[in-house]
């Protein structure tokens, strides 16, 4: 099967295989991505993030159903953490989206974080491009927003929806540091629970101190009962319009593309270091020297770089 040709023809299996190919870094994946890149850039990417148990999958399910009523083609990338001990993972987001699983206009893919350096962000980026070329108009990227790598993934999104639940209290404090900054739309899910208004007030207060140009709105929702869904779609659309009207859409994509290129360079260099036995040995030796204070880390870096053939 010529995967690229098939992908252009909206072939589900080709899209799935290409994602595996980039996720596994199988031979030829970069070549494939070169072609895919040129054809991509049409889909709108929505990040869905928030703490575990916030109901992200259920919310995604409902948002997607709403967009499907408008005939939009959708893809969902659901990311769950990989166990750092066994390298295995249980990816269970699909379970909340069972109704969508037979909808030909929806493609769902689960990914494990797999723990390689910066690799997840790259895989997600690539998967987005593949699904874009596959024909998705909206791509939802769902992650558990607790760690740095998840933040990296969300940077691929045009609009990021931060999902919270009432009564998080301390959790919000923890999430606030840095991560709150990435939300373009805030959703308080399970808003029929006690403390929803207080949580809303807390978030509003935090947003008072935010230096974002467009103040994010805070929406109440009960995703399970399909409440507040249309309003969230409206907010996503409003944010999209804002990005386009202020030319930020273009600006953001330039920024993230630059980052993408830088990441590729970093990956390339790291690859040169860690996949070269000679350099690896040198690194180990230099590390010892640095620890024993015979050499400083800057000099060590310079020495190492000199020996890398780019």
């Amino acid at each position, binding site marked *: 099967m010529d995967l690229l040709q098939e992908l252009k023809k909206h072939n589900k299996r080709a899209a799935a295989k290409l994602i595996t190919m980039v996720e596994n870094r199988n031979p030829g994946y970069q070549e494939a991505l070169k072609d895919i890149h040129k054809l991509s850039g049409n889909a709108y990417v929505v990040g869905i993030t928030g703490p575990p*148990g916030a109901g992200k999958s*259920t919310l995604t399910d409902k948002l997607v159903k709403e967009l499907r009523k408008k005939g939009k083609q959708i893809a969902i990338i659901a990311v769950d953490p990989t166990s750092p001990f066994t390298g295995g993972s*249980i990816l*269970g987001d699909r*379970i*909340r989206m069972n109704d969508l699983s037979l909808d030909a206009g929806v493609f769902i893919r689960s990914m494990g974080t797999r723990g390689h350096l910066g690799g997840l962000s790259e895989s997600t980026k690539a998967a987005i491009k593949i699904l874009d070329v596959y024909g998705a108009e909206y791509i939802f990227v769902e992650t558990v927003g607790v760690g740095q790598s998840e933040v990296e993934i969300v940077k691929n999104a045009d609009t990021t929806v931060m999902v919270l639940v009432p009564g998080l209290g301390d959790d919000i404090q923890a999430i606030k540091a840095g991560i709150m900054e990435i939300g373009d739309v805030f959703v308080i899910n399970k808003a029929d629970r006690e403390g929803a208004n207080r949580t809303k007030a807390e978030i509003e207060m935090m947003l008072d101190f935010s230096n974002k140009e467009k103040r994010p709105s805070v929406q109440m929702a009960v995703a*399970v*009962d399909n409440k507040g869904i249309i309003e969230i779609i409206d907010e996503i659309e409003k944010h999209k319009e804002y990005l386009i009207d202020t030319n930020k859409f273009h600006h953001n994509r330039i920024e993230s593309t630059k980052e993408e290129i830088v990441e590729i360079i970093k990956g390339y260099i790291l690859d040169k270091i860690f996949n070269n036995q000679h350099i690896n040995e040198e690194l180990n030796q230099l590390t010892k020297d640095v620890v024993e204070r015979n050499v400083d880390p800057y000099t060590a870096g310079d020495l190492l770089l000199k020996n890398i053939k780019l």
Partner: protein
Amino acid sequence: MFDKDKLSNIESSLIEYEKETEKLLEKRPERKKVFKSGSGEPVKTLYTPLDIEEFDYSDSLGMPGSYPYTRGVQHNMYRGKLWTMRMYAGFATAEESNKRYKYLVEQGSSGLSVAFDLPTQIGYDSDHALAEGEVGKVGVAIDSLKDMETLFDGIPLDKVSTSMTINAPAGVLLAMYIAVAEKQGVAANQLRGTIQNDILKEYIARGTYIFPTEPSMRLITDIFEYCSKDVPKWNTISISGYHIREAGSTAAQEVGFTLADGIAYVEAAIKAGLDIDDFAPRLSFFFNAHNDLLEEVAKFRAARRLWARIMKDRFHAKDQKSMALKFHTQTGGSTLTAQQPDNNIIRVTIQTLAAVLGGTQSLHTNSRDEALALPTEDSVRIALRTQQIVAHESGIVNTVDPFAGSYFIEAETDRIENEAMAYITKIDELGGAAKAIDDGYIQHEIMDAAYKYQKEIESKDRIVVGMNQFQVEEESPKGLLRVDLSVGEKQKERLVELKKNRDNESVQNKLDNLRNACEGDANVMPFILEAVKVYATLGEITQVMRDVFGEYQQSVII
């Protein structure tokens, strides 16, 4: 209860004993480092009065038939009446199941227990796409009152007590039962039996849910209310630990999670305006019996004592009957092995002893071949005979609660009660059972226990005879019961026939009325009964309710 001086004497001789034992162990070490109960709890070499220092006869046990009911809910237990030997059965069509019920009654079974197929349990008619391949498989297929009439044909409903394993659509099947009785000329207030009607454990462990939590709880309290007036001898719920245990929980979790569910139902009913003593006497429970005989006996005793205390102290029940925990037991399906299936007869015997020594009100004994398929008639007979042998030959029924006063049994009873109570407290903190299920807490605890159990089997820390030790080469078992696929076709034809011949206009009418009732806050039971009587199908009735209430979303807890 124990004299302080005497206790300290015991303590010094115990220390002496332990020293001596230790010396002996150097020469002859024990077979295992830690001896564990069936639920994985460490068990000591010896139990003495020191393990039950707080034991107070009146407070801890009391007399059988009175608070806190530790020793049993009747005064003389099995000297008066034996437990009900109730064999869960049902498969294929209503005709086939009807034959099996008549056979069981002839063989001395004293109560019927209806197993429904999965489409029925999930509220789908046999012609629904999801019913494909499932019709009549794990129980009898019931699509409408017509099937129910056939199922109980020739069985006098004023004479038998019938237990129905039905949950999400329990109200519909109960209504059908009432309607069949009416046709036989038996009034609803004469009917005796039980519906399982326990949705929370479906979310936790068994999986045949339909509606979300809130409307489900409403349906349950509607049934409580309706039955307290119209079907007063009916047990309106069987709060089930059985499936929680099957899902892999420990004995203490079985008690803790089941009673926590019970608390949720009581609270929902009180919130709906019912008086505790109006419905609590009709609450019944359903537990599992596993192989660790002593732990299981202690479990049943602990459950009774803890429930009595909860009803008295937490809910301020006044009626003694509200405090007495009555329960049905089924032997543990997950303890059966597919290897050397005849060995299962022995397992079931041990479990029967546990249930009877634990004071059960009724018992289903599993058949030896149930790890392979639905049981054959021969296997069912052996399982029933097992109960009869225990009842008539073992002698354990001659006196009430014969294990009481054993240091170990009383210490185990205390342990399980305490552990169960700790789970209940934790669940209260999480906002009650419904919320704890929603958050996945209960499922996660059970899954941890189940996984640990599996690992112990694989590492042979736990021996299962015939499965991970003492294996033999076996031929595949012959003569298993099979339900052929034509059952589905037959049911489909019947549905077509039914829909042609009934008064479709009144069906529509009654369904519309039901819809209104669901949307409002009237008790839905009378409306379901009306719809059932004009032969609206189970699928049609539940579809109306699905439209109004929505469907439950499972959570992934692994």
